[in-house]
């Protein structure tokens, strides 16, 4: 039987957790490693930003992140933007909000944005893929190979990233930095 004060404390804790999480102010604050989307450069074109977000999601959704991250993220590259002959109208309708600042009457500007998307996609992909593997390696967690067991609660606990003896060991004189 749970007493009343325990419930009150639990409610407070949940409120605090929601508050802390929402402070992250990123699009994916509710997903694991959602904070990484704060890395998006502020002064990029709309195409640049969209490409970075799609690249980052795709990077986090690779097998480097393992089963947990793959459940939250997946391949996001837009085939129409990546196309050699893109249909501008289709793209404009699909990303009304994200690409609203593009002047769709200016072909040069559209092309620039789509080029930015395609260039930055791989930058974001690489960065986020390396960041997730870097984080997991702090807990000695190597990327799983295909068909390996999906989840081992002992070895794959997310809390392991706080383990002191992983690659991320920062105690002076132990991890060689």
């Amino acid at each position: 039987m749970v007493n009343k004060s325990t419930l009150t404390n639990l409610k407070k804790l949940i409120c605090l957790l929601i508050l802390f999480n929402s402070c992250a102010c990123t699009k994916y604050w509710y997903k694991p490693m959602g904070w990484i989307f704060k890395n998006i450069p502020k002064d990029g074109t709309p195409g640049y930003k969209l490409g970075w977000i799609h690249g980052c999601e795709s990077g986090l959704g690779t097998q480097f992140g393992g089963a947990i991250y793959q459940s939250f993220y997946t391949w996001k590259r837009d085939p129409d933007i990546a196309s050699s002959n893109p249909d501008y109208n289709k793209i404009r309708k699909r990303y009304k909000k994200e690409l609203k600042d593009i002047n769709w009457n200016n072909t040069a500007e559209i092309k620039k944005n789509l080029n930015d998307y395609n260039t930055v996609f791989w930058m974001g992909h690489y960065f986020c893929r390396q960041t997730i593997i870097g984080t997991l390696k702090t807990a000695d967690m190597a990327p799983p190979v295909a068909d390996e067991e999906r989840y081992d609660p002992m070895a794959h606990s997310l809390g392991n990233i706080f383990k002191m003896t992983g690659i991320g060991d920062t105690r002076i004189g132990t991890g060689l930095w």
Partner: protein
Amino acid sequence: MKKIFLIIFLIITSASCQWIKDSGTPFFSMMNIKIPPGTPTFQKGFRDGCENIVYARGNPLYRAKYKGFRFDPKMIGNSEYRFGHSRGQSFCFMHVISNVHNSADNYLNYYDPTMMAQNYNTVGDGLFDGGVFSQSLTTPGNGIDGIFDVLQKGGGGTTGSAFSSNPFWAGGSVGQFFGQGYSGSYYGQ
């Protein structure tokens, strides 16, 4: 005696004079990486690329020091910047993954509250004691032999795979590999 040591020391250190020539070269802190000579655009690209990967693959100390993703949107059309960026990224990648290691006390059992050092034979799933090297080489499904099970049975352990037989034993005892047939007459049978 002190003078002799001092003279030898000076001769050794100034032999190449590299440290004088490079005294103004910017270094990446905590990394001992020099930004290579080149145009300012190239150097900026190199620095940004390096910072990217040092943040991504470094431990929390590096993540505190460096700021994360760096790729200047204004320079996206500049091939020199992009070249520097890619070079910085790949160079620093090799550097950071070779320098950030597991800690020396990695063999302490994390799940053991006493944090006592463990028997080397039993850590890492018991590599030598109960692990693959401790078991018979010839017992099917165990030890080294067991490693090939996945080749024979597929990942699920039940279905067929690329190899229909164990490469260890595939050719019997006459030296074939991967189960290719052999002509009995070759052996005079």
